[in-house]
């Protein structure tokens, strides 16, 4: 096993074990969540990426993670790193073309509408996809999402955030993923057009916070415009790359979680398209 990269927001300290998934082990200290992940999940501001990370690996055991100045210690394994191993989660927007960006957003929309998980929030882009939700709880879930997004689109952004926060089944509820997309979108818009949305961004974050440490952690990163690898790739592709590159980046984003990547992508797309009452 070797260390591939370490996120630029990972701080020194001892992090007790929190939870374990197939491709990730999470550690949490003072509401700060760190994840040791495999290359498939990849880079992130708070990710430590380990090559050949597998089910038998000692890093999957429930022991604390120690992050020192130039090494990570876990389960008896020490992974040293240097400055060149840092993943930088900010995006440089030196070169972008508004027309190409607009076209690429259409490519992203097409991918979300046609390829994303049936249960993702892409039904907000294509009404026909609501058929994928079973009557009963699933349909009520979709209606709640619809209601929250409708509130946002009609000038009641924070009311919409309150409706969406924590809405969804899994570890990172779909509503929170959507809000993270909204925050990333707002961050991008203010950088592209020189507007100042910081107050709105902070207010959305404060409103969206719940008792879910996972959601709070990635919402905080989104608020600060710090992106994980797949989202960063997509943003860069939207700025100046070909349809093909945008499609590939969108596919990689949509492969995150059951529907998380697509939910985040939907929130992001609607925001940068100016549909969320902030333009």
């Amino acid at each position, binding site marked *: 096993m070797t260390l591939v990269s370490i996120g630029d927001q990972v701080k020194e300290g001892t992090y007790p074990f929190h*939870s374990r*998934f*197939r491709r990730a082990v999470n550690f949490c200290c003072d509401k700060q969540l760190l994840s040791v992940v495999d*290359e*498939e999940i990849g880079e992130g501001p708070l990710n430590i990426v380990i090559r050949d990370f597998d*089910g038998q690996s000692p890093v999957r055991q429930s022991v604390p993670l120690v992050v020192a100045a130039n090494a990570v210690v876990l389960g008896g394994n020490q992974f040293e790193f240097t400055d060149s191993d840092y993943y930088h989660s900010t995006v440089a927007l030196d070169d972008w073309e508004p027309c190409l960006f607009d076209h690429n957003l259409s490519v992203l929309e097409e991918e979300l*509408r*046609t*390829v*994303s*998980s*049936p*249960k993702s929030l*892409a*039904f907000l882009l*294509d009404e*026909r*996809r609501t*058929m*994928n939700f*079973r009557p*009963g*709880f*699933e*349909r*009520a*879930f979709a*209606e*709640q999402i619809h209601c929250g997004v409708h509130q946002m689109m009609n000038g009641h952004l924070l009311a919409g955030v309150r*409706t*969406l*926060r*924590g*809405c*969804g*089944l*899994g*570890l*990172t*509820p*779909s*509503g929170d993923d959507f809000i993270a997309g909204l925050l990333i979108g707002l961050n991008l818009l203010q950088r592209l057009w020189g507007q100042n949305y910081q107050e709105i961004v902070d207010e959305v974050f404060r409103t969206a916070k*719940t*008792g*879910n*440490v996972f959601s709070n952690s990635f919402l905080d990163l989104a608020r600060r415009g710090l992106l994980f690898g797949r989202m960063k790739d997509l943003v860069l592709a939207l700025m100046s790359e070909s349809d*093909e590159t945008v*499609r*590939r980046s969108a*596919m990689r984003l949509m492969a995150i*979680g*059951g*529907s*998380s990547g697509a939910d985040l992508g939907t929130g992001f797309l609607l925001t940068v398209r100016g549909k969320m009452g902030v333009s």
Partner: protein
Amino acid sequence: MNVGGQIRKGAYFDSVTLMRVGAKITALPGVIDAAVVMGTKSNRAILNSSGLLAACFDNASDTDLLIAVKGDTETAVQSAMAAVDGLLKKAVNTTTTGGESRSPNLAGALKAVPGANLALISIAGRYAGDEAMRALESGLHVMLFSDNVPLDKEIALKRFAQRRGLLVMGPDCGTAIINGVPLAFANAVNRGDIGIVAAAGTGLQEVSCIISNAGAGISQAIGTGGRDVKQEVGGIMFLEGLKALAKDEQTRVILLVSKPPHKDVLHRINRLAKTIHKPIVTSFVGASTQVGCPSTLEEAALMAVALSRGQGRDEVVSQLVARDKEILRIAKREAGKRKRNQRYVRGLFSGGTFCAEAQILFKTLLTCVYSNAPVGSTKQLRDSLVSQKHSVIDLGEDEFTVGRPHPMIDYSLRNRRILVEAADPETAVILLDVVLGYGAHSDPAAELSNVVRQASRKVSVVCSVTGTNQDPQNRGRVEAGLRKAGATVMPSNAAACNLAAQIIQHLKRK
């Protein structure tokens, strides 16, 4: 109405796992609805609005896992609750372990399975071609499940494979059986001496199941993807498949299945067939049939069985004549239950080949047939969501599958349509195909029973079941479930179509 709830602390699952478990709990006997969700305030509000909020959820926190079940009786709720742990464990195992090896790319997969000689590729079409080429370059045969692979890419892949002596099954190849191993949407059939080449996925499933149910078996079943027999591709893999079966020692009879190939391709197939010294049966659904050639998939499959046993066509003809008499008897009975204004068939198909075969069979038996995927003289429906006169709908067409699973997996869309058609006072017969096998819905009878029960109070519901008793769903059990719900179950799509048309003929005479 009874609602039960449980809270689990420190249990984390991704949303797909939870949705899958929720659906499985809902399918349990006596359960009306269920949800497994994190305990956020929003989720509790949704549970409340869908009648699933249990009193014990009041003190749940955002990171608690809530399990809610609504059932007919307290016993049903308690039984469902007892099953939750097992379902959660199974769902996690399904996605994480189960002995499978997951590699992020082809190189990793080859490392994990060094002796592999076939790659099954199922990724978004626009990327699938490149991945297939990498597999061919690594010396692997390819089954390309993905659709939307560009035509020029398909041709390039097939020409490359042909030069290397490899097969490319697909793109859009949903079914194959290689050396007894069912791939993708295939059925558990007997092994035997009948080899199949098919450019029609459900067609392949239908003939392989009929063969197996008749006591014979399959040596190899090679899918090519429907586009292979078009002029542009030129039948490259259909011909290669035929050559492979000609050489295969296990294969004694060859069965070719397709929608009508382009005339140039047909000419090449015929020319090659003349050089092969094994009996060959063809079923080109919708092509003009010569005297003595099978006119349905069922007849072709039974012909292959007869040849495999050293029998002639007469055996098959007498078998089908006897069956047709039985169909007339059932048609008379069903027509007797209908009113005079009930006069139309509404076919709701999950298999494209079945939809096409229905249109071909109706051509001589019914007038004014409409479809969203018309074949021959059938007219195009104005709106695929609204039936006109006799309508046969292919629910596997892109217009119905955008962002949702194929109708062989997800029955919800068809179930709703069944009820809509049953409510139409002019509908006399609802015609359905039920396809079993790997990849298809795990319990179709349970999924269909309720709507079939409701529909059969007003119309005749006629089904065919494509599958075997060895399939995970068990054909006999599925047929029994459908019959119990009120459907008339026929042994093949052709027989079901014939029955539907005969009911209409009887109603006309009323």
